[in-house]
């Protein structure tokens, strides 16, 4: 059942009900003089007095919207640019960058148009190869299939890891990482 918390007096209930019942595109023929500051101030006072959130169980503490803010997309991406277009993939999604393509990485040319990954890949299949990985491989829980790494190392293309055609970051392999950590300990 839908509960309605009224933030307004009966005098304004009609306007609010109109929203609930409004049909998109419904024509209105209400004539009025444009409302002035003083008229709107009265409504604001009513809104403040009857603020629906004040009727809820009060909550305190830091504003969570200002904590744990997701990383900026640009700084957490690798930017690939070529021939007037640019796209972004997550950091660690690029598995290999041949020397002759390094200038196309993180070097957005002013005037380039940013497009989605699929459109960019369609235009640049000649020098970009994708490697479909599993979720476990992306999370570093499983190695790439036998032969894939060898095949990649022989490729002259820029190689991007993808999961169901979308570029995905490749975390370091957990076993390898743990082994390196253990070896580093005295």
């Amino acid at each position: 059942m839908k509960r309605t918390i009224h933030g307004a007096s009966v005098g304004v209930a009609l306007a609010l009900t109109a929203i609930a019942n409004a049909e998109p595109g419904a024509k209105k023929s209400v004539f009025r003089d444009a409302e002035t500051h003083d008229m709107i101030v009265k409504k604001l006072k009513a809104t403040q007095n009857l603020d629906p959130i004040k009727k809820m169980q009060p909550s305190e503490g830091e504003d969570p919207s200002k904590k744990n803010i997701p990383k900026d997309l640009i700084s957490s991406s690798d930017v690939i640019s070529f021939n007037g277009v640019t796209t972004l993939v997550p950091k660690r999604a690029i598995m290999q960058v041949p020397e002759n393509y390094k200038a196309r990485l993180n070097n957005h040319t002013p005037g380039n148009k940013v497009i989605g990954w699929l459109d960019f890949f369609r235009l640049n299949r000649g020098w970009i190869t994708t490697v479909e990985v599993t979720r476990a491989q992306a999370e570093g829980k499983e190695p790439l299939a036998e032969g894939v790494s060898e095949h990649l190392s022989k490729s002259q293309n820029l190689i991007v890891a993808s999961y169901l055609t979308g570029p995905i970051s490749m975390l370091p392999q957990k076993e390898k990482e743990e082994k390196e950590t253990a070896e580093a300990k005295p």
Partner: protein
Amino acid sequence: MNKSIFTAILLTAGSLSQGYGGESDFQNFIRQVQLPSDGTEGTVWNVTVESSGEELSPLPINPNGARFELHTVKSNPLTGYLLDTKYVSSTVPVAVVQIRTEDPYETVPRTRADRPFNVEISVDGLVSGPDDPEALKKVKLLHHVQSFGEGGDGSNLNRTQATLLGQGFIDSNGDQVLQYLVNSVAGADRSKVRGEERFSVFSLEHPEVDVPESQLDSATVQIWPVADGTISGIAQGQLIDYQVPDVTIAVNDIYPNAQIYAQVYEGNQSLGTEGTVVSGSALIIEESVPQNRVLVVEDWDDVIPKDGVWTIELLTATPFGIDRLDWVTFNVDRVITVNGSVTTTE
């Protein structure tokens, strides 16, 4: 236990690019960021999607959940904007926030500084058992407001600077509607505020699984100022004895989806009277932000067929009705009186 969840992703690409003032220079990206249970970095997947529509995410979500992020990127200069985030997990509640206004515009909820709006919130998945974690028994509703500043249109708005106007707990599942008679965006002249109000629902911090308070859903409504306008070139009570003068119509802050026009009718001013639209005075605005216009109307005698008292009104038609911005009542007396005499000489 690894529980797979398939999550619906709703894309509103058009709205978002429009919100930043242009459509062709923006590209949207959706990211699914996995949140591992050990607090380490999770995988980041760029979801490949069409520019609008819905689809299920095929990437199963970790037990600790995943955060879906909607970004838009401006090509020149290369700039990223975080537009929305949703945290999804097998354990936290689900929330949906929608804002309804009288404006049927579908791209983004918007209304005018003097008009009401409703916030519809739906929460599901809250638990109430004595042994259930406290973190799953309620969610937090936040209400933020932020002004665009004088003449601002919301471009390059730093939303971390929004003011938290209120917060409260929702501790029961179900739907509820919060009704607001008018916006609370700061501004000395309440008719001229422009900004946005954001309502967001956050999960509570869940120490057992090391997940901080995370946004489950949010919705934002744009607030645009009330238009003002003037008719100049003709004065109240002016007597017109020959040709009507040219008049200048100036309107500020025309609502993004509105018409302006001048009409003339016989008699003293009377709100709600339908008159004859003055040729050359009508303008249709279909923009994403308010507009200012100045029009000069000439040769409008044709709408005054006879002498008498007449009124010219400046009106704007919006999704909220028809507002009168200015009016002038004047007198027309075109009878030519010749004072003279006829004499003959013989």
